[in-house]
C-alpha cells in the first residue's frame, strides 16, 4: 500500500493544479472567444449589434433594451482612440480586459457631449495632451458601448448616433 502513496499524492497534486488552471482559464477562455467573435470583422473598429432579439447569440444574457456597439481592441500598434458620440439618454463605455475584468467605465453624466478616451497598454506612456486616458491591463480586450434604446425608434436613433463613434489606432486619427 505504501508503494501507492506517491501516486495518490501525485494525483492529488495534479488535481489541485488542474482545478486552479480551469478556474483561472475559464474567464480568459470565454473572453477570448468573445474577442475572437467580435474581432472577426477586424480589430479596432466598432461593430454595432443588430437590435437584440431572440436570435442574438454572441454574448450571454443580452439586454434587449440597449443598442450595443463593440470594439475588439488590440494595442499591438500603440494606443487607440475611443469616441462615443453623444446620445440623448443613458450611455456608457465600458472596457474589459482579457481576463473579463471590467476595469473602466465612462457614462453620459461624466462628460458633456461626446465621450473621448485614449486607451493605452498598462505600463506604457500615455500620449501628450489633456485627453482622458485609460490603461488596459492586457494587450487585447473589449470596448463596449451601451445606449439605452428600449424601442425600435430609439434603437434606430442610437444606430444613427453610432455612425460617429471611433475605435482606431491613434495614428489613424
Amino acid at each position: 500500500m505504501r508503494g501507492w502513496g506517491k501516486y495518490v499524492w501525485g494525483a492529488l497534486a495534479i488535481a489541485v493544479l488542474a482545478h486552479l488552471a480551469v478556474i483561472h482559464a475559464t474567464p480568459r477562455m470565454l473572453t477570448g472567444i468573445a474577442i475572437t467573435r467580435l474581432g472577426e470583422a477586424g480589430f479596432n473598429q466598432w461593430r454595432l449589434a443588430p437590435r437584440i432579439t431572440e436570435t442574438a447569440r454572441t454574448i450571454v444574457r443580452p439586454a434587449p433594451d440597449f443598442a450595443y456597439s463593440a470594439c475588439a481592441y488590440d494595442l499591438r500598434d500603440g494606443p487607440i482612440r475611443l469616441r462615443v458620440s453623444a446620445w440623448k439618454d443613458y450611455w456608457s463605455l465600458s472596457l474589459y480586459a482579457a481576463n473579463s475584468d471590467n476595469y473602466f467605465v465612462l457614462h453620459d453624466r461624466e462628460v458633456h457631449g461626446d465621450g473621448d478616451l485614449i486607451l493605452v497598454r498598462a505600463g506604457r506612456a500615455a500620449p501628450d495632451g489633456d485627453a482622458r486616458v485609460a490603461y488596459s491591463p492586457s494587450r487585447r480586450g473589449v470596448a463596449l458601448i451601451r445606449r439605452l434604446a428600449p424601442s425600435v425608434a430609439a434603437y434606430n436613433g442610437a444606430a444613427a448616433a453610432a455612425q460617429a463613434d471611433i475605435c482606431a489606432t491613434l495614428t489613424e486619427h
Partner: protein
Amino acid sequence: MLARVLAWVAAALIGGALGVASAWAALEFGRASFMERYGAWTHSRAAGSAAADPYTRAVIAREGLLALSAREALYFNLNEDEHGRPLSEACVYELTGRPLEARWWSVTLYARDNFLARNNDHAAAIDATRIRYGGDRLWRARIAPVRGEAAHWLSSRNTHSDFSLTLRVYHPRHAFAPSQAALPALTTLSCAGDAP
C-alpha cells in the same frame, strides 16, 4: 518499469479528471456561495469588478460576461419561485414591484441557455421607461406563455425547461438598499397539472 509509467499516467489522468470535475462542481454548484440572497433573488456585488476573486470571476464570466461594475449597474437573478421550485413554462407567475431608487431598471427573461427564448413574442423584457404603476404604487407583470389580459408581460413560451429572470438596476441611488421587500416579488398563480 512499464508498470510505474502506467501508474503515473493513471495518476495524472485521475488527478486531471478530479481537478476538472471539482472546478466544474465549484462553478456549477458553488456559485451560490459567491452570491448574496434577497429572498429568491441572487446578486454578486463583485460582478464585473477587477477585485473579484478567481472563483467569482469565473462564475461571472460564465453567467454574465461583459457585465458592468457595481458602480454602474447591479444585477439580480431569479431562478426559482417563492417555494424554491425552478421557474417553469408550465406555470403562470405574477411579478410585482415598487419604484426602485435608481436611474433606470429592467427585468429580462432568459431561457436555460442564457439567451432570450426563441418565441418571437417580443416580450422578453419590461423596463422603467414603459412600466405603468397601479393606484397602490405597484407595477404588475404576468410571466406566462401567453399574455392574457396583462398590461405587462414576460413571455416564457418556448423556454421548454427552466428559465430565469435578471433585474438590472442602473445608477442605483444612495437610497437604494437591496432587500427582499425592495426587489420585485414573484407569486406563482398556477401550474399545469395543479389540482383545481
